């Protein structure tokens, strides 16, 4: 990959990869480590990307795998402090709805957070999420449904019925 292309991919998808990592890890330092790992893997991969979307999905899948490895392992659960997960929240205090949603989403179980992120933020359909995360469509649907129920319970009128 040419340097200019690499920089473009970092600039274009860096925050997408970071948010996937953050959805699992809930802290900035681990998420940044994961982003680094993902881009190192991009150097190393022999995958020939057919188009931009192929690369985007590859980055998301690798980010999810890396994040699961790093942040959901028993060892890491014990070792990683979560306090820096809330540092950003201070910046949002001007908008209560956002703070509430952030807290509600971050309170969801690991596996629900990434599914909701891909659905609500990245606008992926259930089928695409299933492909990216290598899950069954019904699993994704169930996780989304349970995540919505939990968000509704916590956010009440701030979360619309779907």
């Amino acid at each position: 990959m040419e340097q200019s292309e690499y920089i473009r991919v970092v600039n274009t998808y860096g925050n997408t990869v970071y948010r996937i990592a953050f959805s699992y890890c809930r802290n900035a330092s681990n998420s940044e480590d994961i982003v680094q790992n993902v881009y190192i893997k991009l150097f190393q991969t022999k995958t020939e990307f057919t188009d931009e979307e192929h690369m985007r999905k590859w980055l998301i899948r690798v980010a999810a795998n890396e994040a699961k490895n790093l942040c959901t392992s028993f060892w890491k659960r014990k070792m990683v402090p979560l306090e820096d997960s809330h540092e950003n929240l201070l910046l949002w205090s001007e908008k209560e709805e956002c703070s509430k949603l952030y807290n509600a989403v971050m309170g969801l179980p690991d596996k629900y957070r990434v599914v909701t992120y891909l659905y609500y933020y990245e606008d992926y359909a259930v089928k695409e999420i299933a492909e990216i995360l290598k899950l069954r469509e019904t699993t994704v649907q169930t996780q989304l449904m349970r995540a919505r129920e939990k968000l509704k319970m916590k956010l009440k009128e701030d979360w619309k019925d779907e």
Partner: protein
Amino acid sequence: MSNKKLYKETFDKITMSEEAFERIRSLEGENKKNRENYFKYAGIVVAAMAAIFISSNTISYAGTGEPLVDMKEYVEKISIFINGKKADESDVKRYVDENGTEHIEMQVAEGDQKGEVHITTDMDSLEKNNLSVETNIDEKGNTNIEISDFPWKVEKKEGKVYLNVKDGKKILDITKDIEDGKAEGKVQVDGKLYKYCVEDFGEEQSIEVKVIE
């Protein structure tokens, strides 16, 4: 405001620091600091997982490797030991697959033993069959992968089936569990909790072991 709009507005604010962006943009260059950091992190991953697959005369092991930055440099830093003796390594191949899993494949020889080593960062890797793999990082940052005879065995005596754990440290009677061809369970030994899965194929058995905690 719709749920999607609120979600996007909220998560738009989660962004990576400019410092981190800069660091990642510079990864393509020779950033030694990054490489050192990765190696330390990788050591933890390496130590946490190991897997082995063996068939007939071919030895193939799967354990875990570290992220790849400079292939030549890291290849030089990995040593394979078989039953305590350093093995000769050749034809080292390293790559990242479609799923982002890293692989290191190499030919090894130690005395009369020749085989093929396959190390992967796949989290689902398991120790399996007749060999065991342990990895450690020495004080110089070198990765040593030590391979030895697998200390778990299935023994059949007087109509009973036993799982011999770590050269006799524990003997589990799995006769009933394996009646349907497969016995699974957990056992605590040497301060670690292991999950095992034994499959009976008649004359041969497969043993898979994974450290849980």
